[in-house]
């Protein structure tokens, strides 16, 4: 009974450490107007708007859909705001897709952003207190556990960090363009949260991303190729309880299982052409390859090590450069979702995966406890064998 839904327009800002040239309104409009231009629409054509971002304290603007409503052409329309920690960008895309799939709306504008330079994320994550460990400090012990458990060699993290930065060189919107990145550079960079080096961590970015979602009728009328949303799934578990496995996270396994089932995918490694996975710290590539059933247990690192996840490999991951190259927190999940769409629309430019028909967009958040994913395809009803 769910009506078909497609990504018909995509817009991104340039991601930078400080977008000092724009206000918050200017930032979100830049992405929104580009997404509208991509499908040759204006704000007047939009039925509803969905906004997503991480905690309000990052910019010190409470419930920002209120002060951004005018700038996003929302006056007189429905607008709502999603917040599911780091997974919010993907959750917002899914929330928008639900509106189309309900059959009640034809065209929905989804906008996510973060302007980290207005405030300080580590401060906000620490609740404004001293001694905050930041996201890296929270994830580092689990990464260490993964390394111990899987027997992965330490260069895996350096390899992911290098690969994603090399991919970012092909993406004009990426924040980091580290032309001389190398495994040696990553290894020699300062240790921030043992075992994570500085260059194995995501940057702090300003930026916004937007998509226009359309119904089947809207997609057919749209000038450019649609990316059909063929499945989406979300799962959440507690951050802490006795016996929680924080490395091979059950919510992540369940989310992927549900996603593949809905899409009709039985062999994700073979049937998905490429993936944009939320990897804010290098080791999360192999961890989520396992945690989302793409690689066998304890063997995600082997898949990374084999070069399979490079552009040109059999399962490219984070072709755009990923979160390791651009991290406007609240938008990062939407960027994963829209980069997956770029691949199946054939609009990924220099980082296009040849012939990509099915792509995964993914985000996670909180204490690795929130998961939101979607699968997009160049076809409305793809068949898998």
């Amino acid at each position, binding site marked *: *009974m*769910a009506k078909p839904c497609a990504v018909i327009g995509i817009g991104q800002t340039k991601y930078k450490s400080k977008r000092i040239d724009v*206000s*918050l309104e200017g930032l979100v409009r830049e992405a929104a107007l580009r997404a509208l231009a991509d499908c040759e629409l204006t704000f007047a054509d939009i039925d509803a708007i969905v906004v997503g971002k991480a*905690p*309000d*304290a*990052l*910019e*010190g*603007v*409470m*419930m920002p*859909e*209120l*002060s951004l*409503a*005018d700038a996003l052409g*929302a*006056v*007189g*329309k*429905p*607008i*709502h*705001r*999603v*917040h*599911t*920690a780091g997974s919010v960008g993907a*959750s917002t895309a*899914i*929330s928008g897709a*639900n*509106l189309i*799939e*309900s*059959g*009640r709306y034809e065209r929905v504008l989804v906008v996510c952003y973060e302007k980290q330079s207005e405030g300080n994320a580590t401060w*906000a*994550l620490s*609740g404004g207190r001293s001694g905050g460990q930041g996201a890296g400090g929270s994830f580092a012990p689990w990464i260490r556990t993964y390394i111990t458990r899987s027997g992965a060699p330490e260069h895996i993290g350096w390899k992911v960090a290098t690969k994603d930065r090399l991919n970012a060189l092909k993406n004009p919107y990426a924040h980091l363009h580290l032309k001389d990145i190398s495994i040696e550079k990553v290894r020699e960079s300062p240790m921030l949260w043992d075992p994570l080096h500085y260059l194995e961590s995501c940057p702090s970015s300003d930026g916004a991303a937007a998509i226009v979602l359309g119904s089947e009728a809207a997609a057919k009328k749209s000038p450019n190729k649609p990316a059909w949303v063929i499945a989406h*799934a*979300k*799962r*959440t*578990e*507690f*951050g802490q*309880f006795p016996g929680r496995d924080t490395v091979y996270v*059950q*919510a992540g396994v*369940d*989310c992927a299982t*549900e996603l593949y089932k809905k899409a009709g995918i039985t062999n994700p490694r073979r049937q998905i052409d490429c993936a944009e996975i939320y990897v804010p710290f290098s080791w999360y590539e192999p961890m989520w390859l396992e945690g989302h059933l793409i690689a066998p247990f304890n063997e995600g690192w082997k898949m990374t090590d084999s070069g399979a996840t490079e552009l040109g490999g059999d399962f490219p991951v984070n072709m755009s450069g990923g979160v390791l190259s651009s991290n406007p927190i609240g938008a990062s999940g939407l960027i994963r979702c829209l980069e997956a769409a770029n691949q199946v629309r054939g609009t990924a430019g220099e980082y296009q995966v040849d012939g990509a028909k099915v792509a995964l967009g993914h985000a996670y958040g*909180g*204490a690795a*406890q929130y998961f939101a994913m979607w699968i997009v395809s160049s076809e409305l009803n793809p068949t898998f064998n």
Partner: protein
Amino acid sequence: MVTGSDFVPTDDDIAIVAVSQTPAYRLWNDSEQMLIMRCVNDLLGSTGMDRNDVQFTIAGSCDYLSGAPFAFVSNIDGVGAWPPVYESHVEMDGAWALNEAWHRLMLGDIQTAFVIGSGKSSPGTPRHVFPLQTDPYTAAPLGLDYPSIAGLQANALINAGKATERDFAEVVARSRRAAMSNPNAQVSGDHSVDELLAKPHYSSPLRLHDLPPISDGAAAMIIARGKRALELTDRPVWIRGIDHRIESHHLGLRDLSSSPSTKLAGEKVGVHDGPVDVAELMVNFSHEEIILREALGLQDHPNVNPSGGPLSGHPIMATGLVRIIEVARRIIEGEAHRGVAHASSGPALQQNLVCVLEGGN
């Protein structure tokens, strides 16, 4: 005054099957999770459902109220999330969580959802916190607070010749009197209009009693698609429509004496497509009732805010959802057959949601 209707629900219709709310507390001296847990356990108890039978969960809350980024993450402790659950969160009043859950159930693949709204305003100072909703460059640094914006709106209403200070006092007197029979109310009492008018102004033309109390509280409901709803209750409350609209955040671009967004949302859901037996409106400040009644065509309606409304208890982020619950409860109890609930977000009724509910199986 219960009225009939020819509405015959199908499996595509979605109903509220159980509701729960905590009282509005001036200070709830324990966690927000505990407030939520009470509602969730209450709902599971009243429907006989297991936690895992509820297929989707969505909550509305606001980190800034209690001054803790990511406060909503802890809130899932109260809802239950092991084994992992299908769950989401809006940084909005729980009424908007209901809006999302309603759309989600329309897809047909899942049958049931939890909807939750919760908030603790007591740790912070709402007058310091809420200016952060206004324009971050031209208003927030002025500390432009809700009571002041409400004063400007009430003044606009008077200048437009649509109301007097006596009208505001009448709203307060009626709300507080109605709240005397509401066990969840925080503020209630029998006051004469003249007694209220004798009090000094706070943000003129409003007085302190025209403002809502500062409250902690939570509210929740379970909704279900047609067949499943009938399995879960013999008194389903059908959601006949939800619509919400926003206005400009530039106060200078708005006619503050009216609420076109409420009017539009009300038209979209067909408020007057049937008799309105009861209405619960999110009247954050007394003068807003006059604006909202006009926008919804309920100027002389005899049964508006029988609970006492937000003036008698205002657990922000649950307040809007409580309006929907108050209407649903009256339909469940047979006091009403069809009713209208309203929720708002933002200063001076910037964003408004209207929901029409109807009984019958």
